[in-house]
């Protein structure tokens, strides 16, 4: 598989070279190089970055965008980023968590190139880190699901039970329980971020057990949303708001990323020579947005979700004690809370979630 990727990377560099050279007479003011772990048409995570950067390249004059898709989280990533820099990129955006080491190495070699890494860690002068915080934003999604479910069973498919996924599930259940005390969220783990056939089987298993609203934390929500739609169930999307096209009947709403304002700001800073690496984490209303509602969602549900999203945007933190975990223990004592920086180490399910962490 590496051969293929290397071939793709070479082809990309060649194409990029061909694309940039003829216009050398009129140098672009900024070349942005983006590295994606998947395809930009995934109705999910990668598409959210592609859409945002395309918009930046369109809105700002003389900004060019170079994109490398399907780049694995290995040493290949380093050579692809190096290639982007050779093609003149002055702002490189490694969009996958696993590019961390490769990105830092390339950034050390090219201090004149700005990096914005979608992940965590310490920022450096030419290396910024950023991410959208989805966990609290899942609370209003739960409100929507809790109001619309008839069976009081919500299904949630997750790839791998990392802290961020558990946070999404927990906020979802808490939001649902805030409007519907009888509601449960049933979790099914598939064991990978992109095993499509298993995602379909997982969604089917949840629907077999009477869940009538399905949400997910996997790379691309497409398969799960399609499966729910086919069986007449409702769905709440994740990663990209465009996924609503897959479920004309059952789409309720969903969370997506909106990186465009952040990237526009960053690109302007790089052009002006004012870039400094920072750690920037933004939640609902900034990097994270609520998708449009499906046509069948009634007005009172829309109002409740909008109100709840507004609360989160103003700083409401659902991860505030006292909170019980789903084994009857006290997960969070009164007064304690989980901040966005601790979300990655969450290791419990809140009361009302049906599932086991490990």
């Amino acid at each position, binding site marked *: 598989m590496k051969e293929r990727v290397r071939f793709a990377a070479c082809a990309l560099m060649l194409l990029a070279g061909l694309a940039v050279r003829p216009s050398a007479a009129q140098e672009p003011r900024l070349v942005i190089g983006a590295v994606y772990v998947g395809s930009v*048409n*995934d109705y999910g995570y990668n598409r959210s970055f592609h859409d945002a950067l395309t918009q930046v390249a369109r809105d700002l004059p003389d900004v060019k965008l170079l994109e490398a898709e399907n780049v694995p989280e290995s040493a290949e990533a380093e050579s692809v980023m190096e290639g982007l820099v050779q093609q003149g990129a002055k702002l490189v955006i490694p969009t996958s968590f696993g590019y961390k080491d490769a990105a830092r190495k390339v950034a050390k070699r090219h201090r004149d190139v700005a990096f914005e890494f979608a992940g965590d860690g310490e920022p450096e002068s030419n290396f910024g880190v950023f991410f959208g915080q989805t966990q609290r934003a899942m609370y209003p999604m739960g409100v929507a699901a809790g109001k619309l479910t008839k069976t009081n069973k919500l299904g949630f498919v997750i790839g791998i039970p990392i802290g961020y996924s558990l946070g999404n599930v927990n906020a979802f259940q808490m939001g649902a329980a805030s409007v519907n005390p009888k509601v449960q969220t049933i979790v099914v783990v598939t064991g990978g971020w992109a095993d499509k*056939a298993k995602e379909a*089987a997982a969604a*089917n*298993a949840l629907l077999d057990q009477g869940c009538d609203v399905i949400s997910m934390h996997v790379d691309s929500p497409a398969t799960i949303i399609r499966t729910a739609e086919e069986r007449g169930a409702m769905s709440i999307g994740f990663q990209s708001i465009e996924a609503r096209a897959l479920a004309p009947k059952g789409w309720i709403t969903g969370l997506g990323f909106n990186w465009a304002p952040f990237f526009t700001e960053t690109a302007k800073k790089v052009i002006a020579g004012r870039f400094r690496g920072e750690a920037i984490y933004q939640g609902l209303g900034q990097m994270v947005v609520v998708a449009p509602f499906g046509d069948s969602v009634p007005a009172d549900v829309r109002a409740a979700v909008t109100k709840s999203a507004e609360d989160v945007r103003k700083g409401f933190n659902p991860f505030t004690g006292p909170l019980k975990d789903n084994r009857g223990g006290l997960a969070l004592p009164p007064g304690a809370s989980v901040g966005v920086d601790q979300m990655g180490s969450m290791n419990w399910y809140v009361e009302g979630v049906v*599932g086991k962490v490990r």
Partner: protein
Amino acid sequence: MTTPLLLGLLAGAILSGTSLLYATLGETIVERSGIVNLGLEGLLLVGASVGFAVAAISGNPWLGLVAAAAAGALVNLVFGWLVVTRKSNQLAGGLAMMFFGFGASALIGAPHVGAVIRGLPKWRPAWLADVSWVQTTTLFKYDVLTWIAVPVAVLVWWVLFRTRWGLGLRAVGENPNAAFASGRDPAVFQYQALCLGGVLGGLGGAHLSLSLTGTWAEYMTAGRGFIAIALVIFSKWDPLRVIVGTLVFGGAEALELQLQARGSLMSPFLLEMFPYLLTIAVLLAWGGSRRLAAPASLGRTFYGSS
């Protein structure tokens, strides 16, 4: 409105088992002719991507299905040229074809990632549609590939064990020299077997992309080609046992997900291992004469009778 565990298992087993069944039947025919095709994973991927691409371009899932079958046959004919005509090593050739399949399917599928296709239509007989325990599951609401899966397996068995052509094919797999001496050209039989196996493998891959998920993603087979190769051994190269084998493996995957959906308090990590633990357990329990069941010349190159 919850589904009893057994029904859920059966429904899940049939859904995940369908593509496995076609892939395993295809490999069974090929191995009966004395050829091991380790490239099955790549073959499935080519079937899945070609089927999806053609369905996305033409808007017609049936065309996708036909194209997937043709592409599968083509891939296996290339493999045949390598190992039958050029007489190269089957294991190395198979692995090469697997990597070829990874690359080719990624290339073919890339422009269509995220395309919204009309999947294969599914039917449920009217008299079953009103049964309450059927309604809560996917049972009996299948596309054509699932409906004809068992008949196809029986047909393959009949062709292999009840026709002259099948006899010739098995003779080639057991002893190509004897088959050659009796006037049968092993190469012809092996090409025919590869062609049939390619059609079945292509259909198996297409079932994943055109019906089960309705999406294409790189490496979406996630190891199912290798499971199918194991299932051939598990089923002792017998198409009728292949039905049982795919249901057992599909059922094990279904069990993992159904147990979670029912709120079982088993560790999800333990459940994930379950299909593979079960495969090992059944292989042990059903052990014994597997070496005798294998075609005697499996994996050996026929250099001509001299």
